[in-house]
């Protein structure tokens, strides 16, 4: 007998095809539809062209926001794109994934004035989409310097660094561990934030400047180590992400149905057919950051009936911004705070629930209260943070100074080795934002150029 649509949707356990393909298509469209020309003009009119604008200060890449918005308002969309991209070559992706509500738009004086900031993120997307659709290239390479530089990782930090290095006339080889470029832009961000294969288009747009050779399936490890890179290149930039995932730290063997949220997110981004991705009927996501929200919302969009985010502290301490929390809530995700995982319940080798302990602050310390609650769950996601990863540590710790498990850098991205720079999530100085990784990659490229020209 063929299962009805309702039966499919409500089947217990982890199962694929809960929703029809048409429903999935609707669910995974652009979460923020782009502005059309009229909307962009109306939105741009609201910018006050502030002096020493707070939005620029709030932007990790210091994009001249009043300038690009003014350019949009006068019909010079191309000029606007150039203004953005000269500071942030990944301005297109940042326009999609930046938590603008805690960066530029929070700083916008109209947020203070009316609680309604200028739609800076959407305006940035309007300008960069326009230029990228026409493949307008704004930057030319300076005369060849004869220097070659290794960039490890083709994510936001590595790409921003590679582009700026190529601009300065260096030859760049990018060593990417995966078979595809983009890093977290390609594997780590909810599908509804970057539709239509944008991450790959952006890589093509960036590398079109020339002088950037990306080599795939080249993880740092025994075959490719830092020593070798330093021997073969004039400088090295390390821009790999975090390869490890924090464990829940629960006793006993982990049952089937427990999974890392980052793997689920990557799987969704790479899936040709989202209907083939299995998802539970009742899901618990442990964590409180963007990854938890991206995972929970997408699980819901795949057709999970109940999705609960459990966070061990108060909701106001979650790393996910209030905006992200609201996005989760409007998609029917329940956020429960002051709960920490205690024990997974198992049935026939698969997870069937999770027992959590209520928590509270006691003398500035988070402690369990002893009171327990058990939530039914046929799938549990870990989203409690990522780590540098054992492989990275083992490969690098003998040569490089680490700090809190990540690469120690100064403001310009210099490491303890004079010919090695680093930026992005693998360093101790980031905030795990795409835009910060871009700024660090760009600034390291400037520092490398300066060092090599002495």
């Amino acid at each position, binding site marked *: 007998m063929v299962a009805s649509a309702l039966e499919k949707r409500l089947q217990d356990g982890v199962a694929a095809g809960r929703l029809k393909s048409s429903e999935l298509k609707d669910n995974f469209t652009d979460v923020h539809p782009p502005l059309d020309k009229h909307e962009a003009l*109306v939105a741009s009119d609201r910018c006050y062209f502030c002096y020493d604008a707070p939005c620029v200060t709030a932007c990790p890449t210091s994009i001249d926001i009043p300038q690009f918005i003014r350019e949009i308002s006068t019909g010079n969309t191309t000029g606007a794109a150039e203004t953005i991209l000269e500071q942030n070559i990944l301005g297109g992706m940042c326009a999609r994934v930046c938590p603008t509500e805690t960066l530029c738009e929070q700083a916008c004086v109209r947020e203070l004035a009316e609680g309604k900031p200028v739609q800076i993120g959407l305006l940035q997307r309007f300008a960069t989409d326009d230029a990228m659709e026409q493949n307008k290239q704004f930057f030319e390479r300076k005369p060849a310097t004869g220097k070659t530089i290794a960039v490890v990782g083709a994510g936001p930090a590595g790409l921003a660094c590679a582009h700026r290095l190529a601009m300065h006339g260096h030859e760049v080889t990018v060593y990417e561990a995966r078979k595809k470029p983009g890093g977290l832009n390609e594997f780590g961000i909810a599908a509804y934030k970057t539709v239509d294969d944008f991450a790959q288009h952006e890589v093509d747009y960036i590398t079109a400047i020339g002088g950037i050779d990306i080599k795939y399936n080249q993880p740092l490890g025994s075959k490719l180590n830092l020593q070798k890179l330093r021997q073969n290149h004039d400088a090295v930039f390390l821009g790999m992400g975090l390869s490890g995932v924090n464990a829940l730290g629960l006793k006993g063997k982990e049952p089937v149905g427990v999974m890392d949220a980052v793997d689920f997110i990557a799987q969704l981004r790479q899936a040709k057919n989202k209907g083939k991705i299995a998802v539970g009927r009742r899901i618990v996501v442990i964590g409180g950051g963007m990854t938890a929200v991206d995972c929970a919302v997408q699980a819901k969009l795949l057709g999970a009936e109940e999705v609960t985010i459990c966070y061990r502290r108060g909701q106001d301490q979650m790393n996910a911004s209030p905006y992200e929390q609201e996005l989760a809530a409007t998609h029917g995700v329940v956020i429960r705070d002051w709960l920490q995982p205690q024990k997974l319940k198992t049935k026939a080798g698969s997870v069937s629930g999770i027992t959590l302990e209520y928590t509270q602050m006691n003398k500035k310390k988070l402690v369990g209260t002893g009171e327990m609650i058990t939530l039914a769950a046929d799938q549990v996601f870990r989203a409690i943070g990522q780590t540098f990863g054992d492989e990275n540590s083992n490969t690098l710790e003998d040569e490089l100074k680490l700090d809190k498990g990540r690469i120690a850098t100064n403001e310009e991205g210099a490491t303890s080795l004079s010919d090695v720079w680093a930026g992005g999530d693998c360093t101790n100085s980031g905030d795990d934002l795409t835009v910060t990784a871009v700024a660090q990659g760009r600034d390291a490229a400037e520092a490398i150029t300066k060092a090599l020209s002495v």
Partner: protein
Amino acid sequence: MADISNDFCGIKSPNPFWLASAPPTDKAYNVERAFKAGWGGVVWKTLGEDGPPIVNVNGPRYGAIWGADRRLLGLNNIELITDRDLHLNLREIKEVKAKWPDRAMVVSLMVPCEEQAWKSILPLVEETGADGIELNFGCPHGMSERGMGAAVGQVPEYIEMVTRWCKQTTRMPVIVKLTPNISDIRYPARAAKAGGADAVSLINTVSSIISVNLDDFSPEPSIDGKGSHGGYCGPAVKPIALNMVAEIGRDAETAGLPISGIGGITTWRDAAEFLALGAGNVQVCTAAMTYGFKIVEEMISGLEAWMDTQGHRTLDDVIGRAVPNVTDWQYLNLNYVTKAKIDQDSCIKCGRCHIACEDTSHQAITNMLDGERHFEVIDEECVGCNLCVNVCPVESCITMEQVPAGQVDARTGKKVVKKYGNWTEHPNNPSVVAAE
């Protein structure tokens, strides 16, 4: 409740809001809609002499400039006087006036500058029962090339001559509509008075090229790649109009001559300002063409509410009240000292006051205090120019505060004098005759 009924040189209307002679008053259909909406009167779109009707362009007639959010600030037109048959217009004027006897019906006229032409048309208009006529000496485009409109309004002698012909021929009040495209508005106004005009109305539109198409380098509105200057109107011309109204209002030779104020009136507040500067009523066009006739409701309720709040019972309590306060620069009190003050609670920290003052004025506004973004007036530098008030996006955030007499002006280091003192007696004025 304030009484806003209006008597303008003997023409009565329930309120002082008339529609100006323009596209909105070209035919019975529009005018009846206007009366239903509550307009106190209309000046029917300008009639020309009998014969083959006027021909208009068949391409665009209007161009515009906009402010933020595409708010229309200025409109420019190259439309001519009515292109409908004279007798059809006259018939409709008669019908509408009969149907709406309490509303003012004034008919705008423009015929060649010959006595017979004026004397022929006036009885036809009189026969409609219209309340008055308005002589269109104002339109700067098209008809002026044929010796009419602004071509007459720019020559005071012609104004006086034609006005006299009309006054000799008709019982109807004669309103002379003036063009702003002259150097001193007092001369045409005096000429109108000398010719016996019952009133003047102003301003007509300002000669203008509204914009240039940068693809084909044609002025807008573009007719097959060419453009001609048009008549500019709308909120952008209001300051020009206010000044011209005031100039006539305070000129000894034209004092007491009724003025119908025209030029960018969009809200009750605009209208009240015209009345205060001496206009006996107002005429509106662009605002109606932008938003429709309904705007008159806000004008009526706003004017009444303001008058009630201020205790003004009738329009006469308001009309001309600001005229004595319009003076020449040389009589302004140089001992009146102000400083800008920024209300830190309403400041949104956009910094526009700072950069305007820093780049273009007197370096009198901070941008930092103890390492924090903070905008505050430096009294030692502030000349009280008001630029910061004007560029601030938040209303009433920056105010100009008077430095009281006896207090030291931090900029000059001198005590503020209580006594009125102007340029005519200032020691730096070389024309001052030293007291013997």
